[in-house]
C-alpha cells in the first residue's frame, strides 16, 4: 500500500489528514480520541492572548444547510476562539504532543494586532513542543469585529506584518490561514509569502446566513430573535476552496508555497482533488463533526487505493493537475464537441430537453416515443444536458475530428490549437491591422 507519510512545511505526519482548528480540536480529550482514530495531525483550536477567555453565546452556535434526507451540505457557526483558559490549553497541548510524538501538533493563534501580543503567545506555544503555529486570519465573525481574524486577513499589509513578527519571534514553522471573504485570494497569499510564511492554509469559513426563519423573520441560527452572519464550511464550499487553492498554486509569486487545503473535505476523493490542485495536505472539520473521527479510516484506505491503482506516490499527486488550470483566453477554440445521448441508457425523463429547450440552445429534439436526440446544427456543447441528466454517462461529449464540418457553424474544424488571443474577433487582432 502506498505510504501516506507526509512532510508539510517541515512538519512530519503519518498521513496528510489533519483536523482543522475548530471544536474537534479544542481539548485533550477530543484530540487524543482523534489520534487514536488515526488522524495524522491536528491544528489545535485557536488560542487567544492571556487573560480572561472569550465567551460564547449561550444559544445555538451552528446553522445547517441540508438535503431532503438531512444530509449535511454545509454548517455555519458563530463560535469564537477557545473559551478555555490559556494555561489549560497549553498544559494539554504539551501533554498530547509528548504522548503522540509522531503526530503533527499545530497551534492556531489569534491575538491583538500588536507585536508584543504575538511575541508573548509564540513564546508560550514554543514551550509546549508543538510542531508549528497557524495564524488565524480567517475567522469571519465575532473576533473580526474586534480587529482580529478576517479583519487582518482582508488586509494584505496586515498579513505580511504579522507574519513577519511571527517569523521573527519564533523558530516554529508558520502557516497563515486565509479568509475567502476577499475578492482575490492571491493578494493575501502573496502577502503571507512576503512576510516569510512557511505555508498557507485555506479556506477559512465563508460569510453566510444559512436560513431565515419565515415565522420569526430572523436569520438562523437565531439567538433571542436575532442572528448574525456566521462562517460557512462543509461540502458546499469545496468548489470555492478548490479554485482558491489552484489560484495560489499557479500564481507566479506564490508558486511552491506549501498549501494546506481546507474546505468541505469529506471523502478521500475530495482530499485527492485538493492535493492534485497543489495542496500538500488537507484539513478536515465538517465531515468529522458530522460523522465522527472514524471517517479517517476511509480517507486513508481510499487515498492509498487510488495511489496504488495509479502507481503514484503521494508526492506525485501534489500539484499534478495544477498545470492544467489555465486562463479562459488560453482554452483551445478548435476543440469542438457535440452532445451524444445513449438511447440504451436514456430513461426518457426529458430533463435534457427541458433544460436545452427552455434555457439554452434548442438543440435537443423530443421525438415520438420520448426519444431524445441532439441537433448538431444547434448544439454548442454547453454541457448543461450532461449536468442535469440523472443517469451517469448517458449523455457524453464527443469531439468532432479535425477536418469535419461543424453543422452549427458550417466551418471545417481546424487541426491544432488556437485560442482567443489569436482569434479574428479579438480586439487586438483588429488593432494590429
Amino acid at each position, binding site marked *: 500500500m502506498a505510504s501516506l507519510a507526509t512532510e508539510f512545511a517541515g512538519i512530519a505526519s503519518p498521513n496528510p489528514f489533519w483536523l482543522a482548528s475548530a471544536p474537534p480540536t479544542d481539548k485533550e480529550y477530543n484530540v487524543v480520541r482523534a489520534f487514536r482514530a488515526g488522524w495524522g495531525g491536528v491544528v489545535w483550536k485557536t488560542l487567544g492572548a492571556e487573560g480572561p477567555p472569550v465567551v460564547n453565546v449561550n444559544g445555538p452556535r451552528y446553522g445547517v444547510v441540508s*438535503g*431532503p*434526507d*438531512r444530509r449535511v451540505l454545509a454548517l455555519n457557526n458563530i463560535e469564537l476562539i477557545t473559551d478555555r483558559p490559556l494555561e489549560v490549553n497549553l498544559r494539554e497541548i504539551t501533554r498530547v504532543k509528548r504522548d503522540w510524538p509522531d503526530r503533527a501538533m499545530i497551534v492556531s493563534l489569534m491575538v491583538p494586532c500588536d507585536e508584543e501580543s504575538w511575541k508573548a503567545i509564540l513564546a508560550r506555544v514554543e514551550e509546549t513542543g508543538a510542531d508549528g503555529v497557524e495564524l488565524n486570519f480567517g475567522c469571519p465573525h465575532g473576533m473580526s469585529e474586534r480587529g482580529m481574524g478576517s479583519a487582518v486577513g482582508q488586509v494584505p499589509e496586515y498579513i505580511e506584518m504579522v507574519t513577519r513578527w511571527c517569523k521573527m519571534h519564533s523558530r516554529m514553522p508558520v502557516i497563515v490561514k486565509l479568509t475567502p471573504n476577499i475578492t482575490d485570494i492571491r493578494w493575501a497569499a502573496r502577502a503571507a509569502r512576503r512576510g516569510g510564511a512557511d505555508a498557507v492554509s485555506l479556506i477559512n469559513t465563508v460569510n453566510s446566513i444559512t436560513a431565515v426563519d419565515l415565522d420569526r423573520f430572523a436569520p438562523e441560527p437565531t439567538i433571542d430573535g436575532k442572528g448574525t452572519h456566521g462562517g460557512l464550511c462543509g461540502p458546499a464550499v469545496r468548489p470555492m476552496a478548490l479554485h482558491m487553492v489552484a489560484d495560489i498554486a499557479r500564481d507566479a509569486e506564490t508558486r511552491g508555497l506549501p498549501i494546506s487545503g481546507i474546505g468541505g473535505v469529506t471523502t478521500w476523493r475530495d482530499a485527492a482533488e485538493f492535493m492534485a490542485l497543489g495542496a500538500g495536505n488537507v484539513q478536515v472539520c465538517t465531515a468529522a463533526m458530522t460523522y465522527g473521527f472514524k471517517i479517517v479510516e476511509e480517507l486513508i484506505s481510499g487515498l492509498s487505493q487510488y495511489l496504488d491503482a495509479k502507481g503514484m506516490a503521494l508526492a506525485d499527486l501534489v500539484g499534478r493537475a495544477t498545470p492544467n488550470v489555465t486562463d479562459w483566453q488560453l482554452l483551445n477554440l478548435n476543440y469542438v464537441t457535440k452532445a451524444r445521448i445513449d438511447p440504451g441508457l436514456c*430513461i*426518457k*425523463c*426529458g*430533463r435534457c*430537453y*427541458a433544460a436545452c429547450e427552455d434555457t439554452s440552445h434548442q438543440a435537443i429534439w*423530443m421525438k415520438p416515443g*420520448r426519444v431524445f436526440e441532439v441537433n448538431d446544427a444547434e448544439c454548442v456543447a454547453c454541457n448543461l444536458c450532461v449536468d442535469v441528466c*440523472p*443517469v451517469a454517462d448517458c449523455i457524453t461529449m464527443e469531439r468532432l475530428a479535425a477536418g469535419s464540418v461543424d453543422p452549427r457553424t458550417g466551418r471545417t474544424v481546424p487541426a491544432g490549437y488556437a485560442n482567443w488571443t489569436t482569434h479574428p474577433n479579438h480586439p487586438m487582432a483588429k488593432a494590429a491591422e
Partner: protein
Amino acid sequence: MRRRRPLYATGADEESATPGGRGAGVNIYRLIKIPACGSLPGIKVRQEASLSNSQLTPGVVPGRLPATAYAANFADVPPPLDPYEARVAADRCYFCHDAPCITACPTAIDIPLFIRQIATGTPEAAATTIWAQNILGGMCARVCPTETLCEEACVREEAEGKPVEIGRLQRFATDRARAGGLHPFARAAATGRRVAVVGAGPAGLACAHRLARHGHDVTVFDAREKPGGLNEYGLAAYKTTGGFAQDEIAWLLAVGGITIVTGRALGRDLTLEALRRDFDAVFLGLGLAATNALGIPGEAMATDAVDFIARLRQTPDLAALPVGRDVVVIGGGMTAVDAGVQSRLLGAETVTIVYRRGRERMGASGHEQEHAATAGVRIVTGAAPVAILGEGGAARAVEFAYVEEEPKGLVPTGETFRLRADQVFKAIGQRLEGVPAGLALEGGRIRTEGPGRTSLAGVWAGGDCTPAGEDLTVTAVAQGRDAAEDIHARLAGR
C-alpha cells in the same frame, strides 16, 4: 422507523403466551351462546360461541383468531408516509419534462408538480393540484394499481426498478390537506340548472362535484344505504381503513350544491324517463350489480366474492364475520385477490385462488399477486371448476379440470383435481343489468361517445357501466369529471 405489523396473526402464539388461557382446561366461553352473525347465501354459520374457534375449526365460522389479531391484520397497507419519509420520497422525483406518469394517469394529475409541492413543504398546494384533476385523489391514492399506471411509467422504474412512490405521496398530500380542513374549490354562482346523477360511486361523485363547482344543483341517487359505491362496498378493507370512504364523501360535499338521496334504485324507485323530465341533464354512473355465473353443478354452494367483500366492509366487528377453514376463490381479478387475502386475514387456514387461464392473463396485477402470495394465498392457474361438491348445502370441495388455452378456447387436458373447501367464492366478473330501455348498448354496457354521451339526448354515462370503464376507480373519476364538463358546456349553451 417503518412500522412493521404481522401480515397475519395466528392463534397459536397467543395460546403459548398465555398459560392456562384458551385451550387449557374448561373454557367458560364455550358455554356462552352467541347468536349467528347473519349468514351469506350458501354459508352455514355455526351457532356456537366464536371464541372457541381456531383456524382449524371446520366449516364457516367466525372468530378464528384471537380478538387482538384483527386490528393488526386489517391495518393500513401500505402504512401512510410521515412528513420526513414523504420529503425523502418526494426528493426522488426527477420532475420529468412532459412526464410519463401524467400520461399514464387516467385523470392526468400533474404528478411532478404535486411532488415538488410536497418536497417544498406545501402539501396543501400539492393536494389542490391533485384534486383539480381528481376529486377522489385520496381514495385513488389508496386503491389505484399504481404499479400498472403512474409508477410503471415512472422513469425511475426504468432506471432502477424502483419508481417514485407516487401513490403514497398522493395519499400524504391529500390526507394532510383534508386533516387541515382544506377544500380548495368554491362553487360558482348558482345557475338554476338541475342535474340528476344516478349512482354515488366514483364516477357519479366526480361528476357531481364538478357540476356543483360550475354552479349547477345536483341530486345524486344511489340504490344502497350509503353513498360511495365500490369505494364503500368494494375494495379490500385494509386499503381504505377508518371509514375513509365516507369521510372523503363528506369532505367532497363541502363544495355545496349536491344532495345525496340513498335507497333509490333506477328501475325500482326511479325511471330514466322521469329523471329526464324533471332534470336538465342526467348522468348514469351505475355499478355492475349482477355477477357472472359459473354454470357448474353445486354453484348454489358458492358465494359472490363481491357480497363477501361488501359484508366485510360493513361489519362493525371482523371477529364476528364467518370464514371457512379452507377457502377457494374462483377468478383472477382484483376482487379474487381481495376476497382471498381477506379470508386469510380473517383466519382461514388455507386459501387458494384458482384461475382458468395463465398467470399473465390475470386481472390482478403482479403487485396484487405478490401481495396475495405474501399473505399466504396460493394461486393456481390453468384450471377451470367442474363442480362444487358438498352436502346439506355446505361445500366440502371443488373439483377442477386442468385446461389449456388453444385457438378455439380452453380445452381440458383430461386431468382433474379436488381442493378441500368449506367456503367457495365466485369472482369471475360482474354484469350490468336493468339498463333503461332506449339506451344503446355495447358489449352489455351503455354505449357512449366522446365525454360520456349516450344514445339519448341529455343523458350521459361513465364508470363501470360503460365499455371504457376499465373497472378502475380512477377511470370512473375521469369519466365522471369529463362528462360533467360536457354537461356544463351543453347547459351553458356552448
